[in-house]
């Protein structure tokens, strides 16, 4: 068994210290060490986006990041999106029926948050382009794209 390394990181706004093996991915650490199972493993090689998280605000596949790389950095997972109320994206996903099985939903929500932070007023094409790294097999994407556009509109109105 390889030796464990101590890592300090900010996770969903909370200072956190954890032990992990150098070979463990950030996804593995989130799920198995920190009990944050919202990020899902769909492929473990960066092709499906189900494990999407924000690393210092940048959208990454957590299966392609090592746990030790989180040292000193800030991570946002789906568990960190809602405050006392749901994030507009979360509520719009529900109101627009943008999830069926829901396994890809955490990744889509995190990716959509990254999109709207960069581009608060995306076109349909821009939404589709940005979300092309997240696979959904249930919805055909129609209602996901509509939910993201609706959330963007709502957030613009509030801003």
């Amino acid at each position, binding site marked *: 068994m390889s030796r464990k390394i101590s890592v300090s990181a900010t996770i969903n706004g909370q200072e956190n210290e954890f032990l992990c093996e150098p070979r463990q991915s950030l996804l593995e650490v989130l799920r198995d060490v920190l009990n944050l*199972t919202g990020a899902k493993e769909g492929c473990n090689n960066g092709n499906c986006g189900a494990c999407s998280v924000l690393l210092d605000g940048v959208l990454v596949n957590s299966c392609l990041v090592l746990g030790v790389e989180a040292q000193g950095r800030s991570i946002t997972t789906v568990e960190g999106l809602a405050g006392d109320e749901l994030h507009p994206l979360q509520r719009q996903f*529900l109101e627009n029926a943008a999830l069926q099985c829901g396994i890809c939903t955490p990744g889509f929500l995190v990716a959509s948050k990254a999109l709207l932070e960069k581009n608060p007023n995306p076109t349909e094409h821009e939404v589709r382009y940005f979300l092309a790294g997240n696979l959904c097999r249930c919805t055909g994407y129609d209602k996901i794209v509509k939910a993201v556009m609706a959330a963007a509109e709502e957030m613009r109105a509030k801003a």
Partner: protein
Amino acid sequence: MIETQEFKVIGTRPIRPDGIDKVTGRAQYGADIKLQGLLYGRVLRSPHAHARIRSVDVSAAEKLPGVKAVITGRDFPAASNETVHAGEGVVNFSYLSENLMAQTRALYHGHVVAAVAAVDVHIAEEALKLIKVDYEVLTPVLDVIEAMRDDSPVVLQEVRTDELGEKGTKPTNIASHGRHDLGDVDKAFANAAVIVEREFVTGTVHQGYIEPQNGTAISSMDGSITAWTSTQSAWDERREISEVLKVPLAMVRVIPMEIGGGFGGKLNAYLEPLAAALSRKAGHQPVKLTMSRDEVLKATGPTSASVMRVKMGADKSGRIIAAYAWMAYEAGAFPGSPIGAGAAVIFGPYRFENARIDYYDVIVNKPKAQAYRAPGGTNAAYAAEVVVNDLAEKLGIDPLEMRLKNGARQGDRRADGPTYGPIAYLETIEAIKVSAHYNSPKPAPSRLGNKVGRGVASGYWGNWDGRSSASAVINSDGRVSYLEGSTDIGGLRASLAMQLAETIGLKYEDIRPMMGDTQTVGFNDATGGSRSTYGSGMAAHRLGLKIIAEMQKHAAALWDVQPEQVNVKGDVYSCGEKAITFKELAGQLDETGGPISVSVSLDTKGALPTFATQVVDVEVDVETGKLQILRYTAAQDVGRAIHPSYVEGQIQGGVVQGLGWAMHEEYVYDKDGHLLNGSLLDYRMPTALDMPMIDTILVEVPNPNHPFGVKGVGEVPIVPPAGALANAIYDAIGVRMNVLPMNPRNVLKAIGTI
């Protein structure tokens, strides 16, 4: 009568009860489970597509520190050779067991040879490298036509062809040859004014659910097994674990977790019995197994590659008078492709008096074919819908008119036997005919030289009813705790709670639904065959009637009258001048006879087939062969849309899945039978960028057999897309496609560029 029903809840679009958990990351899917003392397992898979296993030596793996158990074929008792209906097809337990864990033969690249449980997954992976397997590599059989030749190597030596009901005498890869005959097809072809005959070849494809298979189990010291898993069918899983590990049914409990997609691929066990067998050997500690994506593609799911020859003849007026299909489907390494369903689908939308279908189930060295959304339907409809359009063109008839002229209606007998009840196919054609899409000009190409075409196709799917159970408790605040047993794979809790609320006159929010397990609620068939909103909806309705009957008794006790004297309207119970609401009465249960709980178990009947007609606009880049879907509209008879958003979602998802199959998806094997594209980069499923919005038209022709008119909606939308796209490509460039996927290479081949 049903047409005039007025609804308060049905037809609205409430938020699903499991929604918040699913958007906040709290929902517990199979792989999310944590248990005290949990061990992690990994599976060793055959690197060969076809081999004899001479020996498996696990001694070094067992000695690795952190390893708690290693299992091989020796740990699996011989299973019964019984074949039973399970999930959406039939299961032979002996073959199921051999598919879970190889004994003396490895039958496809990825076939399980051994499994390890260890304190962490990395140690389990290291242990796999220490297992020595001695293989004698054999020639693989990889192609359906070659597999059918007399001189082909044979995959399963014990198989004899079931030839129209008679058993063959020599070893073969042809598990069965069936035939459907209607009228006199030869004579009818001789009288045809126009005949079209074409051959089609389609590749092996996968369901592509985003959540890999998983299974966690404890085998207790008392011999009982508890398994947590993502499954479409907890009761089928339980039966399979029981049969494979020889544990009585009542000693096996299967707890379905949230499930990340299935599409037919999670009807049968893969990992759960292995986890239980490992737990049994690892001092009864719980063991969790999960698959990697590579394993999912190599060893689960796929649906059949196929070769089909379709011939249709019509008279001068455009009436189809004869149809013939020859169909061969790959079953994978064990008998049981969805060829039977394919043979029902291929001519399902059409009426004619003379037809013959010859259909073959063919064994090859690929993973065992599993159900995949309208199993066997998409490829079959592809073949037929291209031929119907060809026939229409030769006769100078509009493709929709051709379908209206020849479309099946009530009372028609399908080529494979059944006579249609009150179906609504023609209505879906009419819906497309008057749609905004069909009546607007084709879009202009995005680039000079590109061509745009429009195509239509239709599809049929049979739908299932099946067995459903449910129970409910009336709480003193008037809300109802509702336990149902069908896997909720995309909004079922909402759709069922709506039907229960409608029945008993409560609000949707007054029903608190929950999914039970094999120990907490009565028997339920799989969520598959588009049955759950239908069958479990019927159970919800019956449950509601029982609740009403119980509440009538309590109201009667309150007023000292007979239950029959209590009238019920919505949520108001009354007798003469006296009246009380459901909620008020629920607060007085203890004074009127005590608490109420009810349960129902039904063997539902009366599911009706559904039909879909779809239109697509495609842009073809004739230089590269690339296709771009520009616009898509899907019309479907949905019976009654309980929750219209979820019905639309089923249609949109089915269409896009069908387009993935039509455009990109295909297993690629080398000549030795190694799967070369076991990743989601190389097994190319549609992304958001590949697709336009999918417009839906819900045609509501209620099913008279269901209290709310429900028809299954989940499967038929995947049936027409490949045919519609092929017909659109023809409209664009004048080339009839005859192969799936219609990827750039195959489009360029069809054009003649390469």
